């Protein structure tokens, strides 16, 4: 469904799309069945001369079951959807697989700032790399993100990851993603945040290990200071 328009680029994108497909099939069936029944009844019982209406209160067994049985079946469908929805939710939002790297994402009016560890692999050290409106990550690595906001609510939204999380001033919200596909994609702000909300776009660059090393080498503040980088100092 969604992958028709938006590529799947994270480890859980397929789970979300699978859930959406399940919901589409189940509710699609009920929607189409109800509409067919509805229009058929309108046609079948249109006003005709000499045909009287039937006096039914809704207590008659033979007609009542036409409502009762679908009603129980809807309940069964609901249970399936709940189970599937909770499973996907728990995977994305309630579990935190071990991280290969941790980044900080800060929303402010009207830009995203990304801080990621430099060659030492640790956040909040001197070799951190800070970028604005560009996030470079490595494919097939698990990232934790620490999401913050400095002024108003924003929402860190990456459609190709099927990931969305509001950022709230005064809080640090931890989440995760694992990119699975190299390429350049949109990062959105999905919570209205003032007059610049419509320009609060950032780009996500999912890179191969080599590309990422190269990018890191070019941007590391330590590297710039030392003017030279040896291969052995770079982190995984």
């Amino acid at each position, binding site marked *: *469904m969604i992958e028709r*328009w*938006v590529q799947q680029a994270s480890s859980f994108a397929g789970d*979300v799309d699978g*859930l*959406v497909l399940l*919901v589409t099939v189940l*509710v699609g069936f*009920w929607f189409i069945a*109800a*509409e067919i029944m*509805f*229009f058929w*009844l*309108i046609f079948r*019982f*249109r*006003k005709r001369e000499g045909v009287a*209406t*039937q*006096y*039914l209160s*809704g*207590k008659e067994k033979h007609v009542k079951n*036409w*409502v009762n049985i*679908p*009603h129980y079946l*809807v*309940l069964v469908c*609901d249970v399936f*959807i*709940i189970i599937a*929805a909770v*499973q*996907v*939710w728990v995977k994305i*939002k*309630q579990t935190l697989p071990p991280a290969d790297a941790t980044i900080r994402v800060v929303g402010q*009016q009207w830009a995203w700032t990304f801080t990621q560890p430099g060659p030492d692999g640790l956040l909040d050290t001197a070799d951190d790399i800070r970028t604005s409106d560009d996030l470079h990550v490595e494919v097939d690595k698990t990232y934790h993100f620490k999401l913050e906001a400095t002024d*108003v609510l924003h*929402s860190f*939204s990456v*459609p190709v990851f*099927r*990931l*969305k*999380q509001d950022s709230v*001033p*005064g*809080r640090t919200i931890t989440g995760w993603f694992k990119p699975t596909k190299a390429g350049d*994609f*949109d990062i*959105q702000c*999905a*919570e*209205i945040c003032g*007059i610049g909300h*419509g*320009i609060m776009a950032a780009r996500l660059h999912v890179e191969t290990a080599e590309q990422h090393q190269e990018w890191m080498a070019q941007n590391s503040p330590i590297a710039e200071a030392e003017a030279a980088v040896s291969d052995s100092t770079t982190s995984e």
Partner: protein
Amino acid sequence: MAHHTHAADHGAAHGAHHDQPWFIKYFWSTDHKMIAFQYLWTGMLMGLVGAFTAYVFRMQLAFPGQPVPGWGVVSPGEYNSLITTHGSIMVFWVAMPVLIAAFGNFLIPLMCGVDDMVFPRLNRLSYQIFLLSAIIIVATLFVDGGAFGGAWTAYPPLSADARFSLTPAGSTMWVIAVALEFVAFLMGGINFIVTAMNSRAPGMKALDVPIVVWTIVIASLLFMASVGPLFAGAVMLLFDQTLGTGFYNPGKGGDPILWQHLFWFFGHPEVYVVLLPAMGIVAEIMAVFARKKLFGYKTILYTIIATAVLSFFVWAHHQFIAGIDPRMANVFTVTTLLISIPIAEMCFLYIATLYGGSIRLATPMLWALSFIATFLLGGVTGIFLGASGADVYFHDTYFVVAHFHYTFFPIAIIGTFAGFTFWFPKMFGRMLDERLGKIHFWGTIIPFNFIFIPLFFTGAAGDHRRIYNYMNFPDQATPELQALRITATVALLVMLAFQAVFFFNIFKTFRSGKKAEKNPWDSNTLEWTADSPPPHGNWAELPTVSRGPYEYGVPGRAKDYWPQNEKA
């Protein structure tokens, strides 16, 4: 002078209103029908304001940066103000005044067979406060800095601090207008509940009350029970804006998420506050034009009550990804999916009512049937959003916009047209033109689908909400998506153009329409036993009730209907 004294002393006295000066007649009348009409026309006028805002921002989305005829180039700040004003007006100043206040005021005394509301003066005050709130919200469009632009949900800190919103006057006036509107509807709601509970025609038992009266009463109870927390929230928001308190400011020990809980604790029941009266209107019309007893009156009543109760336990499905404890999302997924049970049951019962009927497709029935046909899509698409795992993707996309317009448009627009065309003969004593009515119907319902079906797709394709120009987002700036946006806008233009037919029909009917009889649709309920239009006091002699409201096609009777007041 004598008139003044007379009117002031006997505001509720019947039969003497014809010699009142116009100011007293229109601004101090306590007649429930006059107040109903004022709510109706004010609501429709506000609907035009809401439609205009939609026209401007849809034009901007289809043709970004081009000057919009009647407005000019839309700046990002103006865009935010327009969408905020559109949402606020359509919910608080169109759906509520028309569906609850106008139909509630008109129908409850007439359907219960009494001469007026229990508290007529409170009723009058309710409209006056409502009018004041409407004037304030429209005025925000013209103040310095423009109208509030923080969306109709008004999440702080954006809404709480002028440094962030850049609309100091607009945001404060927005809060005041909304709070006043709540006050007006509390007063109206008390009236509806007390009148329907305590003041009914002799013989009218609780289960003889037409469903639409039940829905308005239960909607009013729902409103009263849910609005308190938000009213407190609104006062705190006002203090944050004007006094520099920090209820929603984490820097001062507050919490922005608090507002979201208060807002949606009200905001979700509010959906049912407007849905229920619309479903009530549809039930009345379907019974009359299918010539059928409602299928399972009691079950419908129970599903209404079940929906109302459940609606208090679903609010945080608006906040799955807002930063609440993620475990909470599981609880709210369950409650949200559960509310589909009574709603589905209600839809099934309505559809079953058609079985064995003799269906006449007059204009009111077309509207009522189209309510069911379109609301079904709004209902089922809600499941995608209630399923937490899928909402991670769909939250705040155009899928949400399309979903709730498939609920709110049937409610606020289709429900209104259904009720308006059905009760128009009673309200104004003339028959609307059927041919024009049908042209207006098809000219509204077809473009409506062409507006919002494309938006399901743009939402699924990742269009996020409240963006004034998607060209800033490379993945969204595709010709395919832009074609869908243009389709929606063109369909909106067509739909708006067809509303001229509606207003022309009213104009023509008032000038030269056929006079309506007392009971043009052969209905059972009590309002059709009064004159068209009913005089002040409604009946010379108040009716008594012998049976339920839906005795159509009773075997062994010559007529296929059996009015509630007819003696057995």
